[in-house]
Structure formats: C-alpha cells, structure tokens
C-alpha cells in the first residue's frame, strides 16, 4: 500500500490547477454589460449562463452574487484555518459581483481582477 509522503501532501496543497468559475475567465466588460442589464436580467438567466454562484443574502431581500476565478493555483491549503489566508495572499483572482434588487432583477455588477489581500 502506498502512503502519501509529506512531499506529495505539499504538492496537493499547493497544486496548480485553476479553480472557481472558468466561465468568467474570458468574460469581457462588454460581454458582461450585454448579459447583465440593470432592471431586466433575472437571477435565472444568470444561473443558466454562469452556473451556481456564491450568494450573500440580506434581510431587505437584496442579494449579492459572486463568481470567482482563480487562474493561478488550486491551493487547497487555503481551506486550512489561518494558514489558508496567508497562502492566498497576493493571489490574483477575477471576480464578477452582481447586486440584485428584492424583485430578483440585476441592479448593478462589477467585473474586476483583484489581488487578494
């Protein structure tokens, strides 16, 4: 039986496959603006186009959806408390952030490349 060596574990934890939502990797501002029309586009349209988001819901019915793409590394190590935050620092990610009004329509969006703090 083979046993994972520390080297193998380290490789696993810092592996280099991209993570997140690959559909936003090549999304441009123009295409995003065409897809995400304020007051018109519904949640279901976006879910169909981009898949499942990470959702933050507020008591007033508004929601912010996040799609994130990290092309630099899988970095499973980021799930390790405290160490994870250190490991992810400086990582360049692409994030699509969408604000919905309580009626489920897009209010605004932001597509930006961010260096994780």
């Amino acid at each position: 039986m083979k046993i994972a060596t520390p080297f193998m574990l380290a490789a696993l934890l810092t592996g280099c496959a991209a993570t997140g939502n690959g559909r936003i990797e090549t999304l441009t501002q123009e295409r995003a603006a065409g897809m995400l029309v304020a007051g018109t586009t519904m949640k279901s349209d976006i879910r169909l186009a981009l898949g499942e988001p990470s959702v933050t819901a507020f008591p007033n019915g508004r929601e912010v959806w996040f799609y994130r793409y990290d092309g630099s590394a899988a970095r499973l190590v980021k799930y390790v408390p405290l160490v994870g935050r250190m490991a992810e620092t400086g990582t360049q990610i692409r994030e699509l952030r969408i604000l919905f009004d309580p009626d489920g329509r897009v209010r605004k969006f932001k597509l930006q490349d961010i260096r994780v703090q």
Partner: protein
Amino acid sequence: MRDVDEVPYRRFYKGMQVFAEHRRLAPGAALRFRLYPRAQDASFAGLVVTLVAGKTEIPVELDANQSFTLPMDARLAAQDAVVMTNRKDGTYAWRVDIRTPGLPPDTRRLGDLRLECRVDMKGAALRRMVRDPSIMALAATGDPCTYRTFQNPFFADRPVFNVTLVHGTRREAIAGEWMYANSARLLPEAGYALVDWGHARDRQYIPAIFDASWPDDTLLEFEYMDAPS
C-alpha cells in the same frame, strides 16, 4: 442589571488617551464616536444620548450621522460616569469615528481606519467581538491592528457594493471574501450576540489595514448599493 444601551465613560476616556498617543496616523482628524444600527429593529428616531455622572446629566449632541464627541475629563472616569441612550441594550453598534476633513465624497482615509482600530483595541473596546485572552494579550503587548490574521471589520456609511483602495496609480478592490462578513459566513444567527455587524452585513468590509505597503494617505473609494452604476 438594567436593560439600557450604555457604555462606561472610562472606556471612551481610555480611547481618548490612545488617540492622543497615536494621532500621527490621522494628524488632521478629530476623535468622535458613532452609533450604527445593530439590532434588526434599531431606529434613530427619538434617540437621546446622555452623559450621566452621579446625579448630573449632560446631554450629548448627535450630528446627522449619530456621531458625537465627549469631554476628556479624568474626574468623570473616576466617578464611574456612563454614556447612556434611551434604548435597550444591544440596539446600536458603538464605534470610534475618525475622519480627516476635506476628503473627496464617498471616500475614507486608511490612516483614519488604522487609528480607529488602534483606539478601539488598545483603549475604548467599543466593538463587540470575542476578545479572547490571546487577542487581549496581543492588544496589551503589541498592536493587533497590524496583524494579517486579525480581522478588523468596519462599517460603511450606507450599504456598500464595492470598496477600492487607491494610492497614486495603484488601485485594488477588496475581494468579496472580505465584504459582508463573508469570511465568517458559518457564524450562525445565534452568534450575532457576540458581534455588532450581524444585522448590518450590507455595510461591513474588512480592509487590509495591516498591509504596510499601503500608506496612511491611501483612500478607500466606496461605491454604494444605491448609487447609480
């Protein structure tokens, strides 16, 4: 114990001492304190704040943002004076409020936030948070505001959509992970008693105040949810 949202004056007094000691972080700013909604039904209508020392009651003037100043008086601290509202305990989040005047609209200055953190952690202790022994030891011997692993949540003036740090040509947005308490998303609602942002997540953001590569004069630009795109 009375069910009143109040804070001992001595904590504000300690905050004023720390502010005087570290004001180089925000040389043009004054020290104020501010109330934010904390309870789900928190309202500012009819709010009255009073400084009570024995039988003496001094009205505290609130500005339009529910911020206020207090006199710095060692006798009041020794007298066990209290800053009292006419609301139930836990209605408001009490925060240090330090703002350099003359900044562009919808911006804050990073040095002001750093000083707010320091005044709170090393003096006023207004923020509701789990102040476990390791954090308190850190606050006593060092400056937790400079530690990457210590999360410092701040409130925006209104529900916020995006925050960008700007210095010269360098611009970096705060990732969604550090907005809306998303990094603490596993905290159950029952845990909101331990923090002051539970029902105000749409204002919450965690800037990298620990990151010394951003100078104190760095500005944070806020895009609010209700602002046009």
